[in-house]
């Protein structure tokens, strides 16, 4: 029996009943779209106070990458954050900051709703799109565990664990239940994708 509402906010509220939210503006267009959000929220008089932090990679002595401590502390305090896009170098450079953030805060379920927006015409507007993709965010191909076996031969490890798979599956069902979605389908790779759907209890 699935219990407990998925993703309840556990953070504190300020005296004036404003919520403090951590903000990572990000790279590229990140700072511009983040300041758009701040402007709009301010115009709407939304009860949100922003705690802005810069995120950049810090390479530790053991070879691991982490993000700056003030950023980490802020998220753990506020329990909620808004993040802009963060650039990852291709084929070289530091480990993805997006990945590092997911690992630091144990963000195991990534939820991506895809819904047709009225006023934005696409070839699919007629039937309308309304689906939610939930992805396991901490392992799989994105473990980033790679090494060169001999020159010219590279191995990349895709890691799957029972615990992480169970966690994200449970999350998907709770999400469906709490958001009145009728069914959950899974999409593994391979020939084996007979359209399996489970009904949400």
């Amino acid at each position: 029996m699935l219990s407990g509402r998925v993703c309840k906010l556990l953070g504190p509220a300020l005296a004036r009943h404003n919520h403090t939210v951590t903000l990572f503006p990000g790279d590229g267009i990140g700072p511009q779209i983040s300041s758009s959000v701040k402007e709009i929220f301010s115009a709407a008089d939304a009860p949100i106070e922003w705690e802005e932090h810069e995120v950049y990679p810090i390479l530790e002595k053991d070879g691991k990458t982490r993000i700056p401590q003030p950023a980490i502390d802020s998220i753990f305090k506020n329990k909620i954050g808004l993040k802009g896009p963060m650039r990852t170098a291709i084929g070289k450079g530091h480990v993805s900051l997006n990945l590092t953030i997911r690992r630091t805060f144990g963000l195991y379920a990534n939820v991506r709703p895809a819904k047709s927006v009225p006023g934005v015409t696409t070839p699919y507007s007629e039937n309308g799109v309304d689906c939610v993709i939930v992805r396991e965010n901490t392992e799989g191909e994105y473990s980033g565990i790679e090494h060169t076996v001999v020159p010219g031969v590279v191995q990349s490890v895709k890691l799957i664990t029972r615990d992480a798979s169970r966690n994200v599956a449970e999350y998907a069902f709770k999400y469906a239940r709490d958001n009145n979605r009728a069914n959950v389908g899974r999409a593994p790779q391979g020939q084996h994708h007979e359209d399996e759907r489970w009904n949400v209890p």
Partner: protein
Amino acid sequence: MLRTLVRPALSTVSKSASTISGFKSGTKYGGKTTVTLIPGDGVGPEIAESVTTLFKEMSVPVEFETIDLTKYTLNDEGAFNNAITSLKRNGVGLKGVLNRSGDFRTHNVEFRGDLDTYANVVRCMSFEGVKTHHSGIDLIAIRENTEGEYSCLEHESVSGVVECLKVITREKSMRIAKFAFDYALEHNRKKVTCIHKANIMKLSDGLFKSCCAETAKLYPSIDYDEQIVDNTCQQLVINPQQFDVMVMPTSYVTVVSNLGAGLVGGAGLVPSKSFGDDIAVFEPGARHTWMEMKGMYVANPVAMVLSSAFMLKHLMLNEAGDNLITAVKQVLNKRTCQTRDLGGNATTREMTRAIISELHELHA
């Protein structure tokens, strides 16, 4: 118009794949070429029947050596080895999709490994008569068929933790990159795009990508660019016409070619071919056996028929191949005979008969 093909000498790759220099080896008796036919599972035998009927009707000088693998599992090595031996002897095969067994490696993957058919080419092209959200698509997805995620090296390190190894080597990456550019040259294509995820898998996809970039320098007449696979998926649904030839490691093609198939009208319309140095295998591009509909004769045979037409062209029977492709396009354009996936209720055999009558009209 004179077209000069530039064949740069690469010390790492000495042989060119059989598509470039044409059909080299093979079995020929009494003027007829013997071709291995593996109907496959599910609706495979039904769509294979379409091909044999059409070839008979066209009096094509091809003799089929049929090998049925439906009843056999990977434990029964005999039948499987027969198929491999036959393909190695004949040099050309037409194959339906084999159902995934619960065993360690799937049949389809075993084939590729044993035959070293390292280059898989899937062609997703729009048909005028097939109503879809996008039109004017003609993309080619080329994949390295023997390594990457489908190396099938998996193990359970401790209970509840499974590792799957994805192996990328410089040798095979250079080989497939050269194949892709040679293919583009031969088929008058303008651009090759390398699809990768090298921002996350920096070493493995990074190696693949750098091999493609290195090879691109040797083909200055072909445009080259690179794209991260997530962006590629987005671009495919927004603007699929931008893609020409795409080259990528194994597992992304499964996603990209099925996405491409969906965009042009479904798995029933997409042919593919796999090439090794001495062997060519032709099969439907999107690997669906549709086991539930086995024996009902509702499947669309177009993918298999187009694959067989490409096979005829490979065997230098160009006129027959071109006629078959034209006949298929006519049937689809007329929209009078449509199988379930196209919105109608024609049977596989009715579709075959429609193609036959178009062939008669071509000869009239």
